[in-house]
């Protein structure tokens, strides 16, 4: 069928593996320079309060302290934000959540910096705390941002709509209506490495920041306006990242701004590192949603109307909410046919941690609702969950809720069928419905999704990658797309190696540096491979053309008859049998004759004065969006995935064990096979946490836990073996046909598990996570105030350093 590949789609090593497994990888905290100071932030004492007075006089006198700064010391813009610029880098008049920074200090040691913080006095006037978005929307609620425009409701800063057909007519045609309320929780990204940066004043003015940063260019823009510097005076260098999952954007921007300000004020390098507790206290989370779903359906299972109203808790600041909720509004009805759709998604300010990008980006929430609704629909009309999805699911040419006609290979039914077949879904689903009474019950559940690839109509979508051949035939590659552990550098390396016919060991990939590569937008939306990879392919092709041209001049053979394979310039001999005595240097059995090594070719190219540098730029195909009508070509292509979960439910304790899992994804083309599998396994594990365990809980704006002793993520003992099936329908838009996998892998595990619980018990869980209490009792239990014997709430413990009675974590 297709062309053979040497690297792409085969099992290849990750380019970052060696450094990571030998401990040589340098993470942000590993960077130290002479004379560095340690920066620290004093954070708010209340989730919502007016700042009356800040007294830093005592703190400033402490020996070893080099700077004590407040919002007044900021030379440029005091706030930042990707859409709505209202996030305080240091709060000036008001604090809006417990993680708000108020005072910044730098000292010669960490200990002195910590001590300094305790000597600062801030007087507050506490304001009413708004912890619940639906309350915050009420007209009599106080406003969290006085100057922010409101959409329809109080504290509501986003309203996205989709309007298609006429839902009134649709409901009139329906035989019955299914109406449900769903709720999801705050989720911590749980990156292994907490936030850390090192900021150094630059020789020519400006600042150089090295750190654990996901979206270097967004952070750079904010640092520049914050310090009144030109972009070329702010250099941000990405260290090896210990995970991000969407989480190292704004929280890192704030840390970059703060450390840079301290560095410029003191003239010395400043290091800032968050403890896990500080990280959980300040960092943003995945949005909790409240979702009202109402579907009109026919007796035969067709859907005549879909009406959705979703409310996202945006927390204290707008952050990525406008974009996150936009993806939700586009995908809120899933890959299912319906003529009449009306969806409204709102984002609302509260005094909780602000919420932003996290793997899935607005899809895990709605997928939970959609896929639960689909199962309810199946139940209602007496079909099985697979049948109902096959009946209503999209195929090529389908028109989405936003009016977009899907012209690519719509593989929804392929992934559904493959997943169901490989897990014996239909048979097991039926058997488990009729299992004999027993305390432990088995269940199987299915969930599928379609997902728009890359940013879509959210904004400019383009990226650049640079391939630079050295005179010895080794290669330096760099890109505006960052690697956070997801494997972007590996995928781009594999593409470059494929195009240039070289082995991976010739490639050195550089970590992203904003001053050396072009602004390629954020590394989000599963766009690394499709955008950065496409740019890498173009860059490599530019270099390849030069090399073949030189090769042709060297050998007198036309460039068309030359190729680069396995580190050699070769003469392709077509399919004709090789005459005796001619080497066949290609393990893929394609006939060819080696003419020169890649090293010789590189040296010759240099000798001839030809450019050995390729810059590839890729701009995404066109998308469109009409905000008023809620219609448009939202994304240039989509991916399709299906998960099947099998569970064992202890009906007397509520404990759910996932015992088997099948995950099928159409990735277009698996550039790095191991990378795709890794994304699928990790995505399932993370989705399992979302479905069963994780919940970042607050009480009146105060987080109840700030470490992994109480915020529980799955361990290896909780994740079952995952059967991953990779489907490859090459897409015209991506490099070698590749699309994406990072977020798709994570977005449907939870509904598959919840549907499996229903199959086992006949009880549906409408609020995530399906923890012990929800599964056993049907609702959540909330610990109020102190826990165990004498424990204070976690955040208080960490903001108030006074020595209280000894207390411990017990799960009382």
């Amino acid at each position: 069928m297709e062309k053979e590949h040497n690297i792409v789609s085969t099992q290849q090593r990750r380019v970052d593996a060696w450094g990571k497994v030998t401990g040589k990888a340098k993470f942000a905290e590993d960077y130290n320079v002479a004379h560095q100071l340690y920066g620290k932030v004093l954070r708010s004492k209340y989730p919502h309060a007016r700042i009356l007075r800040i007294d830093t006089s005592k703190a400033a006198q402490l020996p070893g302290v080099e700077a004590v700064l407040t919002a007044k010391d900021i030379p440029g813009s005091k706030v930042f934000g990707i859409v709505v610029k209202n996030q305080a880098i240091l709060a000036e008049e008001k604090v809006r959540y417990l993680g708000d920074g108020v005072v910044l200090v730098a000292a010669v040691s960490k200990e002195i910096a910590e001590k300094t913080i305790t000597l600062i006095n801030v007087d507050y006037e506490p304001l009413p705390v708004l912890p619940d978005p639906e309350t915050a929307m009420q007209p009599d609620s106080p406003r969290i941002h006085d100057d922010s425009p409101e959409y329809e409701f109080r504290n509501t800063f986003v309203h996205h709509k989709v309007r298609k057909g006429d839902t009134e007519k649709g409901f009139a045609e329906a035989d019955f209506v299914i109406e449900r309320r769903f709720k999801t929780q705050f989720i911590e990204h749980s990156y292994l490495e907490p936030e850390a940066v090192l900021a150094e004043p630059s020789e020519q003015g400006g600042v150089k920041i090295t750190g654990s940063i996901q979206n270097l260019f967004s952070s750079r823009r904010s640092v520049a306006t914050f310090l009144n510097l030109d972009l070329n005076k702010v250099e941000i260098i990405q260290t090896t990242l210990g995970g991000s999952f969407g989480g190292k954007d704004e929280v890192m921007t704030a840390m970059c701004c703060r450390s840079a300000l301290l560095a410029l004020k003191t003239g010395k390098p400043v290091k800032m590192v968050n403890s896990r507790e500080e990280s959980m206290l300040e960092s943003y989370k995945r949005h909790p949603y409240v979702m009202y779903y109402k579907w009109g359906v026919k007796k035969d299972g067709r859907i005549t109307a879909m009406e959705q109203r979703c409310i996202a808790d945006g927390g204290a600041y707008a952050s990525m909410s406008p974009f996150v909720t936009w993806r939700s509004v586009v995908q809120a009805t899933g890959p299912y046919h319906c003529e009449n759709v009306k969806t409204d998604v709102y984002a609302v300010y509260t005094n909780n941690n602000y919420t932003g990008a996290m793997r899935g980006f607005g899809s895990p929430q709605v997928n939970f609702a959609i896929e639960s609704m689909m199962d309810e629909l199946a139940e209602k009309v007496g079909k099985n969950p697979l049948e109902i999805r096959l009946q209503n699911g999209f195929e090529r040419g389908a028109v989405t809720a936003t009016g977009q006609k899907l012209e690519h290979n719509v593989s929804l039914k392929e992934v559904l069928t493959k997943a169901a077949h490989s897990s014996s879904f239909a048979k097991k689903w039926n058997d488990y419905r009729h299992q004999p009474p027993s305390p432990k019950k088995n269940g199987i559940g299915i969930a599928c999704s379609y997902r728009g690839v890359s940013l879509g109509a959210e904004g400019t979508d383009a990226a650049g990658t640079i391939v630079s051949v050295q005179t010895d035939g080794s290669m330096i590659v760099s890109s505006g797309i960052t690697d956070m552990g997801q494997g972007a550098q590996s995928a781009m390396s594999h593409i470059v190696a494929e195009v240039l016919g070289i082995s991976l060991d010739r490639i050195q990939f550089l970590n992203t540096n904003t001053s050396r590569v072009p602004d390629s937008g954020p590394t989000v939306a599963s766009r690394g491979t499709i955008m950065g990879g496409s740019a890498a392919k173009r860059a490599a092709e530019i270099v390849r053309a030069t090399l073949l041209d030189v090769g042709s001049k060297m050998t007198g053979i036309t460039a068309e008859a030359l190729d680069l394979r396995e580190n050699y310039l070769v003469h392709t001999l077509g399919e004709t049998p090789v005459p005796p005595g001619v080497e066949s240097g290609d393990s893929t059995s394609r006939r060819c004759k080696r003419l020169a090594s890649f090293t010789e070719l590189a040296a010759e190219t240099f000798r001839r004065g030809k450019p050995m540098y390729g810059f590839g730029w890729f701009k995404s195909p066109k998308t469109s969006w009409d905000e008023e009508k809620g219609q448009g070509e939202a994304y240039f292509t989509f991916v399709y995935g299906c998960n099947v979960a099998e569970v064992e439910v202890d009906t007397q304790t509520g404990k759910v064990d996932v015992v088997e899992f099948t995950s099928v994804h159409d990735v277009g083309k698996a550039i790095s096979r191991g990378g795709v599998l890794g994304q699928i396994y990790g995505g399932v594990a993370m989705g399992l946490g979302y479905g069963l365990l994780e919940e970042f809980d607050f009480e009146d704006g105060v987080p109840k836990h700030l470490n992994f002793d109480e915020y529980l993520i799955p361990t290896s003992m909780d994740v079952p073996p995952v059967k991953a099936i990779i489907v490859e329908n090459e897409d015209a838009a991506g490099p070698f046909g590749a699309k994406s996998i990072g977020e798709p892998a994570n977005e449907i595990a939870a509904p598959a598990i919840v549907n499996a619980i229903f199959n086992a018990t006949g009880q549906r869980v409408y609020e995530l996570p399906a923890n012990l209490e929800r599964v056993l009792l049907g609702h959540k239990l909330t610990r109020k105030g102190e826990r165990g014997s004498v424990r204070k709430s976690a955040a208080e413990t960490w903001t108030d350093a006074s020595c209280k009675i000894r207390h411990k974590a017990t799960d009382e």
Partner: protein
Amino acid sequence: MKPFNYMRATNLHEAIGLLAHHTPNVCLLAGGTDLLIEWRRPSACTPENVIDISALTEMKGIESGNGRIVLKPLTTHAQILKSQAIIESAPLLSVAATVIGSPQIRNRGTVGGNIMNAAACADTVPPLIALNAEVVLQSESERRTLPLHELFLKPYETVARPDEILCEIRFEKLPVKARSSFIKLGRRNALSISRLSVAAVVARDEAGVITNARIVPGATFPRWRRVVEAEKLLVGEKASAELFRAAGDTVSELMIAETGHRWSTEYKEPVIAVLVQRALEQCCR
């Protein structure tokens, strides 16, 4: 973490001397898996003086003989779960050791630390109380032995004085006919604090009549104890689902009587009853 004076004892005698000298501003450090976590908290009361006893070889190991087991306090959970003597004569303790934390925690954490930390969710404590274990506390001035359940005052508080060191845990081997079980319910399958746990021992005669029963729930009562009220129901009876359910219900009722209604009671009330029932069933399978 606040600074403290660190001393590393090389033998038990030295440790006891150091304790006496620094009491009451002193604390023993064994595996550190409870202490180091605690000391990280900004609000922790870090002691002035810390005596590291982890090098005391005479405080490590499991001795088996004369129908008794002597468990030295620095024995790690990993050592307990691998011990053939424990597997044979106190299998419920072996089970408890396997479900503690993770391999790293089991390699580091000690049974003495688990007891002396006195958390309501300590996993070795219910089995040890069900084994009628005694503990030996030693100080410069005295050596005293007391039943393990009398050691505890309330969560995180014991009757041990700051100058005392736990130097021995001992219990009689379970009779050959007795069967035992330990059930732990956590939110996840590893690295999980016990929401609830139950240790049980049941002995039956040839006719299948229960001659001895011990039930010790974990994370249930404010003070650790055997639930004799439920045990009494069992003795003289034959094993049955109804009987075990009644025992479970008794434990559940007593829990509410002693702790009152808390945020978690709605969940714990039915579940502790089920776990007791299951633990007893496991003993009679």
